[in-house]
């Protein structure tokens, strides 16, 4: 275990020097294996990891879902999604915030990135909420929290990476995210209602839309529904695999964006290059994490963790709660994808040993990652929002997300207490 702890310490030192995390993990992984075994083993192990990361058919879902999300973002669907949600709930107290949550959920159904969901919805929802007199804290907090739905409601890049790391079915992971995603929407809406119940002036009601107007608004978002049904229907209807679904989804998103007149050659070129850059960044982290995971597997840490749990007769649920607590603390310091890649290889053998379902644990990990997106000081969604809304202070934004963090903790507790919420759909789908 000492070697592993020294390894984590070395990564921390390299992080302080601002070495990109991928390189830090790669160096520690390589040096660690050389230390425990020998240099030739470390050398050939590193070559094999780089080689295999490049030639992995399953991993092709990552660039394709990233491409799909970037194309959908270009389609500027957010305004129609927001209008449709507003037509149904906008007249209620806090209605615009409720609309934002619903629209974020809809956008998350075709985009697997929280940051993209936050950035896209901020441009549409924030000015509308402020115009109606919403407080900056509620408006900003709603968008930052709503944005986290992007990674829970399938398709989700984090889920894909988790599924590949733990050798789980991507289809089952996606199915497992649906009910927790709906639960998240309900709880976020409850948080909005609670805030506006305590301070009605923070979220005044908007105009009432009659039913014909509602149906008309709903017709404008057919593209989102069509794309979601194409990808998910294709997977669960047995038409194509999740890997193929990503390619079909990307092509569908291309056609849809082109049909809406948003796709010019320069835009297409930028979307492709941006997606390739994101892919390169994710794969470098993946290569680093795999090298580090190999080192951890050579140490006695995974076995000793299991023995420690056995020796102290710790209840398995206590272990899960402890892991969640570690994630929430780490989430305050680390970027989300890096956190998953760095820690999942350490925790998942223990979780599996304790008899938990790894699909269920994957959703728990995604939920804690969601929390890390909105907790200080790193909270990436809040940072993205701050860059788009320079007039609003970080303090205001973090104050605004607090009620949503509270309901996130409640949701986490519910998912731990009732695993059926996660595991019901994978039983029938995927």
């Amino acid at each position: 275990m000492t070697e592993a702890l020294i390894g984590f310490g070395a990564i921390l030192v390299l992080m302080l020097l601002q070495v990109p995390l991928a390189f830090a993990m790669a160096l520690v992984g390589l040096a660690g294996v050389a230390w425990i075994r020998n240099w030739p083993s470390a050398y050939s192990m590193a070559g094999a990891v780089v080689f295999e990361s490049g030639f992995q058919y399953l991993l092709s879902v990552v660039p394709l879902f990233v491409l799909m999300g970037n194309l959908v973002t270009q389609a500027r669907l957010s305004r129609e999604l927001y209008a449709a949600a507003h037509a149904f709930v906008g007249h209620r107290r806090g209605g615009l915030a409720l609309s934002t949550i619903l629209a974020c959920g809809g956008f998350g159904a075709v985009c697997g990135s929280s940051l993209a969901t936050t950035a896209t919805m901020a441009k549409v929802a924030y000015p509308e909420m402020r115009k109606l007199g919403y407080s900056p804290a509620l408006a900003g907090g709603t968008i930052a929290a709503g944005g986290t739905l992007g990674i829970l409601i399938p398709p989700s890049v984090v889920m894909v990476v988790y599924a590949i790391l733990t050798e789980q079915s991507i289809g089952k992971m996606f199915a497992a995210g649906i009910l927790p995603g709906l639960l998240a929407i309900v709880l976020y809406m409850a948080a909005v209602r609670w805030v506006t119940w305590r301070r009605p002036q923070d979220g005044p009601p908007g105009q009432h839309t009659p039913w014909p107007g509602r149906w008309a608004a709903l017709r404008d978002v057919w593209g989102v529904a069509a794309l979601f049904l194409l990808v998910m229907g294709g997977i669960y209807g047995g038409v194509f695999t999740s890997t193929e679904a990503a390619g079909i989804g990307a092509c569908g998103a291309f056609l849809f964006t082109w049909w809406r007149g948003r796709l010019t050659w320069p835009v297409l070129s930028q979307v492709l290059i941006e997606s390739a850059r994101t892919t390169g960044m994710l794969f470098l982290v993946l290569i680093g994490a795999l090298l580090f995971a190999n080192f951890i597997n050579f140490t006695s840490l995974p076995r000793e963790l299991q023995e420690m749990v056995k020796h102290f007769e710790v209840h398995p649920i206590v272990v899960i709660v402890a892991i969640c607590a570690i994630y929430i603390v780490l989430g305050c310091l680390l970027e989300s994808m890096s956190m998953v890649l760095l820690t999942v290889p350490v925790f998942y053998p223990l979780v599996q040993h304790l008899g938990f379902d790894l699909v269920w644990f994957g959703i728990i990990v995604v939920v804690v990652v969601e929390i890390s997106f909105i907790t200080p000081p790193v909270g990436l969604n809040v940072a993205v929002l701050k860059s788009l809304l320079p007039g609003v202070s970080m303090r205001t934004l973090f104050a605004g997300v607090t009620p949503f963090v509270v309901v996130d903790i409640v949701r986490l507790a519910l998912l731990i207490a009732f695993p059926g919420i996660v595991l019901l759909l994978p039983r029938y789908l995927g």
Partner: protein
Amino acid sequence: MSARPRAFHERVRDAAQWLLRRLAEVTLAGLALLTLVDVLGRYVFSFPVRGAVEMTELLMVGVIFSGIVLATQRREHVVVDLLALPQRSGLRRLQQGAGIALATAISGLLGAVTWSRALSALDFGERTTILGVPLAPMVFFMSAMLWLNALVNAAHLWEIARGGPVELARPSTDPEESTP
């Protein structure tokens, strides 16, 4: 006033950048189209693309490794900013310089280990199973990209050493790029 003629190294840099971009575009678009053609071929014409899985893997190599260099060029790789040092301080410059120097060395090292993997693929004449495409050139490409990545990092280090800006992810100076 006429524009300053570009130095040789600037022309090489721009040409390399252009090539990398086209490679990223073609391989990623190819990846999506290949899946579409394969699925349509299988269900509509009962004629799937032969070796589609292998072609996907080969295209992936293009997307990933061109993407790694393009991301480094924009300094987009994940860095955790744990010490809140002032942007303009000498300590910040030192911290950034040390970080990039280490990243350069590690990228070079990864390039070297991949090169030896490529040599072994060449020695054993490794090929893909269905299409029989030789793997060695692809692995040499991976290695070359990791070395190019080290070179891009070294260029960042040179910029910092000459007093250039130290911020992390930053907007590109490339005229081809602007926010869509």
